[in-house]
């Protein structure tokens, strides 16, 4: 493979952003800027699809690897994909163009700057998912803070400043310990290359501390209870496109990090800390589901449901079972699609009514039926109805959990019921009931672009719900390999 396809995936959005930077910033509807951004991201999506097609599913090693000396004798710029990361890359390149189409209605001022921020964000996120060197990973992981800080802070809602600061400082605080751990790994093993580290392995006596340092970063970013509090604030105040990016992709960085680094590099410590993860995940599932029940703000409700869903993800990863890990990956992909869709559906009514409060709405089904149908689909996917992608993920995770720890699995299953409760109740209050608010009578149904975006999201949700094989086939070999490596590591120590 001579053509550096991964680097071009990373670089293309930045090139697009540079183009935008040199276009003139007009007020109002800046079509040129939007087309440039859209074109870039669509091309990027096509490249990533090509990547998926030419990806060899029967190999567990990293493919499309690029390895260049970056800092002499210290860091190599190394990127590559395996079955796990490729799905996240496709998710990223799939969601970003939809975000860009959706800015039509939600972003009023400084559209060009907003698009630049989104494009740069996309670059960094793809970088995170294909980095095969710890320092390169950290670079992309942290760099994403800058555009996200600006997206929340400039285009966000009323309490945007507070939320932006909270988001930035929380995640930075979590990450600096990871930096200490990365440098320590370099001094312990002499390399930061992930593939080499998989082979060498890290001495058991260091693993626990290093695992905790990585955990501190990933836990904040996941986010796990009790460090999840930045998420509802950030979500609520971010503009729709920002919330979508946050929920669909940013949260997946940490889940991906858990699989790639915590499990892969510190197998012994992962076993040691499994009870900790179980406890926190179960608390997250139950506790945040209960919190979601009493929310009056739709976006906040979805944000809390994200925390609960990510609780399932972390639970699944640390079952250390084939099903559990596969389930977690599918759950992350599915949550990426579903939460993006839910934030967009909330965005649709917010753009019309400028209120996110559930009490503003009610009886929408009689005025905007198309919207109500799609909303129902996403709500059902979120609660994991069979036939949607949400079901596959949760089911596999719970299967893995039952194999590993019965009690935890039972409690987590209660979380599924709670998830159904808050989602259905939300749906009932917003869509059904009497149409009391007079303003709602004039509300318009989905326009073409909104309809297009939501259908784009609905299609894969249903498709993978009925036919998850493409996803499972892609990840299977890599996950099996990961589990095997894990088991041999445990057995040898």
């Amino acid at each position: 493979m001579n053509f550096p396809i991964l680097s071009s995936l990373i670089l293309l959005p930045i090139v697009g952003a540079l183009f935008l930077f040199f276009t003139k910033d007009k007020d109002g509807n800046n079509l040129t800027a939007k087309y440039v951004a859209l074109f870039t991201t669509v091309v990027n999506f096509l490249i990533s699809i090509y990547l998926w097609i030419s990806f060899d599913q029967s190999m567990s090693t990293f493919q499309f690897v690029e390895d260049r000396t970056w800092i002499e004798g210290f860091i190599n710029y190394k990127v590559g994909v395996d079955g796990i990361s490729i799905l996240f890359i496709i998710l990223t390149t799939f969601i970003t163009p939809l975000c860009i189409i959706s800015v039509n209605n939600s972003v009023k001022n400084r559209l060009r700057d907003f698009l630049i921020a989104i494009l740069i964000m996309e670059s960094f996120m793809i970088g995170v998912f294909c980095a095969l060197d710890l320092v390169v990973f950290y670079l992309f992981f942290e760099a994403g803070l800058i555009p996200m800080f600006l997206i929340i802070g400039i285009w966000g809602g009323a309490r945007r400043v507070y939320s932006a600061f909270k988001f930035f400082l929380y995640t930075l605080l979590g990450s600096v310990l990871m930096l200490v751990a990365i440098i320590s790994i370099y001094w312990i093993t002499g390399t930061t290359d992930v593939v080499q580290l998989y082979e060498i392995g890290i001495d058991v006596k260091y693993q626990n501390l290093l695992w905790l340092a990585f955990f501190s970063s990933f836990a904040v970013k996941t986010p796990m209870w009790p460090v999840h509090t930045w998420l509802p604030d950030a979500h609520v105040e971010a503009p729709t496109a920002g919330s979508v990016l946050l929920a669909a992709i940013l949260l997946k960085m940490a889940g991906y990090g858990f699989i790639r680094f915590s499990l892969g590099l510190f197998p012994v410590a992962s076993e040691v800390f499994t009870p900790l993860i179980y406890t926190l995940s179960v608390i997250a599932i139950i506790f945040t589901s209960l919190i979601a029940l009493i929310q009056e703000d739709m976006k906040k409700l979805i944000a809390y449901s994200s925390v609960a869903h990510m609780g399932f993800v972390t639970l699944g990863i640390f079952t250390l079972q084939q099903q559990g890990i596969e389930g977690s990956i599918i759950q992350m992909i599915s949550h990426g699609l579903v939460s993006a869709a839910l934030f967009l559906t909330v965005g649709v009514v917010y753009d019309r009514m400028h209120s996110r409060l559930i009490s503003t709405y009610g009886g929408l089904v009689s005025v905007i039926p198309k919207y109500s149908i799609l909303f129902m689909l996403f709500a059902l996917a979120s609660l994991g109805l069979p036939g949607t992608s949400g079901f596959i993920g949760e089911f596999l995770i719970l299967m893995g959990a039952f194999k590993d720890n019965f009690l935890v699995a039972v409690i987590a299953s209660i979380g599924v019921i709670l998830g159904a409760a808050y989602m259905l109740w939300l749906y009932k209050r917003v869509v059904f009931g009497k149409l009391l608010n007079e303003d709602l009578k004039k509300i318009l149904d989905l326009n073409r672009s909104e309809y297009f975006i939501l259908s784009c999201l609905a299609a894969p949700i249903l498709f993978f719900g009925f036919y998850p094989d493409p996803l499972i086939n892609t990840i299977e070999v890599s996950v099996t390999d990961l589990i095997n490596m894990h088991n041999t590591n445990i057995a040898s120590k």
Partner: protein
Amino acid sequence: MENLNLILPEIFISLSIMFLLILGVFKNDSSKITFNLSLIAILITTIITFNETFSVTRETLFNESVVLDSMSSLMKIITLIGGFLVLVISSTYLKTFKIYNIEYPVLILSSILGMMVMISSNDLIVFYMGLELQSLALYVLATYKRDQLKSSEAGLKYFVLSALSSGLLLYGCSLVYGFSGSTNFDIISNQLNSEEYVLTFGIVFILVGLAFKISAVPFHMWAPDVYEGSPTTVTLFFTIVPKVAALTVFIRFLYVPFLNLIDQWQMIIVFLSIASMVFGAVAAIGQTNIKRLIAYSSIGHVGYTLAGLATASNEGIQSSIIYISIYVVMNLALFSCLLMLRRKDQYYENIDDLSGLSKNHPLLSLCLLVILFSLAGIPPLAGFFAKFYVFKAVLEQSMYFLAIVGLLSTVVAAFYYLRIIKIMYFDKEKDKYDNDHSLWLKLSLTVSTILILLYFIFPSQLIEVVSRINII
């Protein structure tokens, strides 16, 4: 016969100072020509330094009282370039306040000369001479806006406190001399051993004096007042050039004469470093004046450079030098932005004056955004790599406490940098500032911002240059 070529830069710059003084006395209205000539003088000195000394590995002169090695040549070049840029972007500011006089370039040149002597010193007396020459020039520069109360106050404060610290330093030197019987660093290094406890006093006094010069906590008290009161261009000079020289001297003291006493000084440096990092981060939060804020932030940055020194390893020294080089670029960029906040011959230096800058001046605020994120140490900007190298060296010596405290204080420090960004980007806009900046100012801002932004593409070059420095 000594090879005088090696100190040709110092000789040339002293001759230029004398010539410029004479020119200033005999020619009327000579400010402009002095400025230009002094710029040329610095350029020529830089070229001479580069040609004559850059390839030298280690040479000594005058009974080993002056040393020329890869560190001294690199630091001299940084000093000279820093001085050049300060001079070149000062003129508009000075003209505005009608202090565009011949003394300014001459004083800058003489303090640069002092610093070059300091950087090359291998002897207590030579070192002290250089130190006093640069300090005296700096006292006058601090009061340069002499009809303003704050500027005079800044100069006086700096003078009194600096004199005190020089006294401590001299006392320390005399103790060291008393125990070793020599003022030469190499001989001291051979004579000293950790048996003599009184010697520790000498070291402590010297370290206190040096810590004062680079404004490390708890000897930082002068910095915020002096930085705020001095003319902005002088503050820029304060924050970059003397720090480079003082750091070099710090390295030389610790790793040449006191190398065998690592146990005695390592804890002191670790303390200075931690105190500066934490204090610099916390104290900056409440500031409203940008220059004061920069003072505290530079205290924090000094803490990070000291962290590299505390490792007692070559990697540590190299990382500190990388840090200070990147810091010089970042501060230069930051002050270029500050000098652009001008409206009808008035300069604005409060953080509130930046309010909504991004609406009126998108490019300027974008540059400032990059600079501030870089100062906060967010990847992939240059400031991150500076910190990265330092902590890499620190962790090599397993100094986990220092590394973790340092990195946590970057999070605190990130808060006040973010606050400025918030004011620029999230708040309501104010009146526009003037756009007619001098070409040099624009150039220095653009070039330094691009360096910060794109450093990650070519990180190896700087490391290559610095890796030639092997003191131990």
